[in-house]
């Protein structure tokens, strides 16, 4: 195995172009587990911790550009206001030690259906900035990024540079089911984001299908049926939960059964929409 240590973004792109088999490593919270357990033996490790720009975020024209290596801890401490859904999901990642190292870029690179950041990225309509030396920059909408279990649209010579998100224009919520409140890989998870300007509600399902995905039918239903000036109609809420559950295509595994996941997605969809709606309507949930 080789250990590559670029110190600039261009050096990192060159290293990846020359060695497409090199495994990028940032916080190591996924990659090192696979190496420690002999699940993976990449031909090289491409250490990105020496490329400082990846750890920074910026605000450009109301859009947040979050560097791929910005830690969950930083997102929680600095971006909870403008990116509440992503910050809530970040709080549920692992433990403080893991949140100090783990990043959204790493979550995207691993592309696990259970990754905590995916549902809020989908609900908020995030765009992922990837780049290669020879192919240049590609901006990939989150909902086109996930292709299969641990497979993404990232090409072998590309690296993830940043995630772009609009500052929230309405309430956003994330919910996750697990056996305890910390150190939990999601049994399943759900994110909702209200976009009042567009009269639209975004959704994201986690750990409930081969990839993180939106509940498109449910979003379309709300676009038709939701009255933005009224209380949330219980019939609409119920139907929303059903449609979100129907969007799931989960499996039975060690963390839970498919039936349980489908049920839980419906429950979380109703709860998170209720919380978001209460905020939007200026009320606090009891």
């Amino acid at each position, binding site marked *: *195995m080789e250990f590559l240590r670029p110190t600039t973004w261009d050096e990192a792109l060159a290293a990846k172009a020359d060695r497409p088999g090199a495994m990028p490593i940032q916080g190591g919270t996924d990659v*090192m*587990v696979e190496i420690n357990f002999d699940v993976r033996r990449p031909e090289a490790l491409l*250490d990105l911790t020496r490329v400082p720009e990846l750890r920074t975020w910026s605000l450009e024209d109301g859009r947040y550009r979050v560097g791929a290596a910005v830690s969950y801890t930083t997102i929680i401490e600095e971006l909870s206001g403008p990116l509440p859904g992503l910050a809530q999901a970040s709080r549920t990642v692992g*433990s403080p*030690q*893991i949140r*100090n*190292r783990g990043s959204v870029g790493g979550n995207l690179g691993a592309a696990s259906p259970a990754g905590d950041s995916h549902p809020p990225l989908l609900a908020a309509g995030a765009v992922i900035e990837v780049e290669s030396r020879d192919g240049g920059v590609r901006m990939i909408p989150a909902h086109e990024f996930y292709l299969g279990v641990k497979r993404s649209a990232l090409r072998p010579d590309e690296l993830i540079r940043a995630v772009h998100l609009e500052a929230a224009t309405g309430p956003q919520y994330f919910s996750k089911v697990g056996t305890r409140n910390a*150190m939990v890989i999601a049994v399943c998870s759900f994110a909702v984001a209200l976009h009042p300007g567009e009269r639209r509600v975004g959704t994201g399902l986690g750990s409930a299908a081969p990839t993180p995905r939106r509940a498109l039918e449910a979003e379309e239903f709300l676009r038709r049926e939701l009255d933005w000036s009224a209380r949330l109609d219980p019939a609409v809420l119920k139907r929303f939960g059903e449609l979100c559950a129907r969007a799931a295509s989960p499996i039975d595994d060690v963390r839970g059964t498919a039936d349980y996941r489908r049920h839980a997605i419906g429950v979380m969809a109703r709860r998170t929409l209720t919380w978001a709606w209460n905020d939007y309507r200026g009320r606090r949930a009891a």
Partner: protein
Amino acid sequence: MRVTFTVNGREECADDVWEGESLLYVLRERVGLPGSKNACEQGECGSCTVYLDGTPVCACLVAAGQAEGRQVRTVEGLAEGDRLDPVQEAFVESGAVQCGFCTPGLIVQTHDLLERVDRPSDAEIREALAGNLCRCTGYEKILDAVRLAAERKAATR
């Protein structure tokens, strides 16, 4: 490969380090600091918690090469000579140590908490220590120890 980094204020150099090796392995097997414990190797248990450039991390999830040129502080680096750190003292006095395997990680993580928060609430303590598992399940005494250390540190401020 060769890895050179600073551990507890001293420059250390390890040779013939395998590229996939963890910082934890280098600390325990090459630098001779077995305080950080090797248990789960997947970041689940917190027994290997060390400071990396001032931030608590699981040493088992840091590739050795990532520590090149960095500052590492382990549980061995908390005491000043024979004088234990207040967190260590509090763990001893509160009976917060049973088999002792989780203790070093808990002490480093508690040390960080009390550097950041003067008088943490129980909820803050639980949140800070959520990634440190005690298989003896001695959590009540551990919480006692953190509260005691917090009081003492606050009193000396």
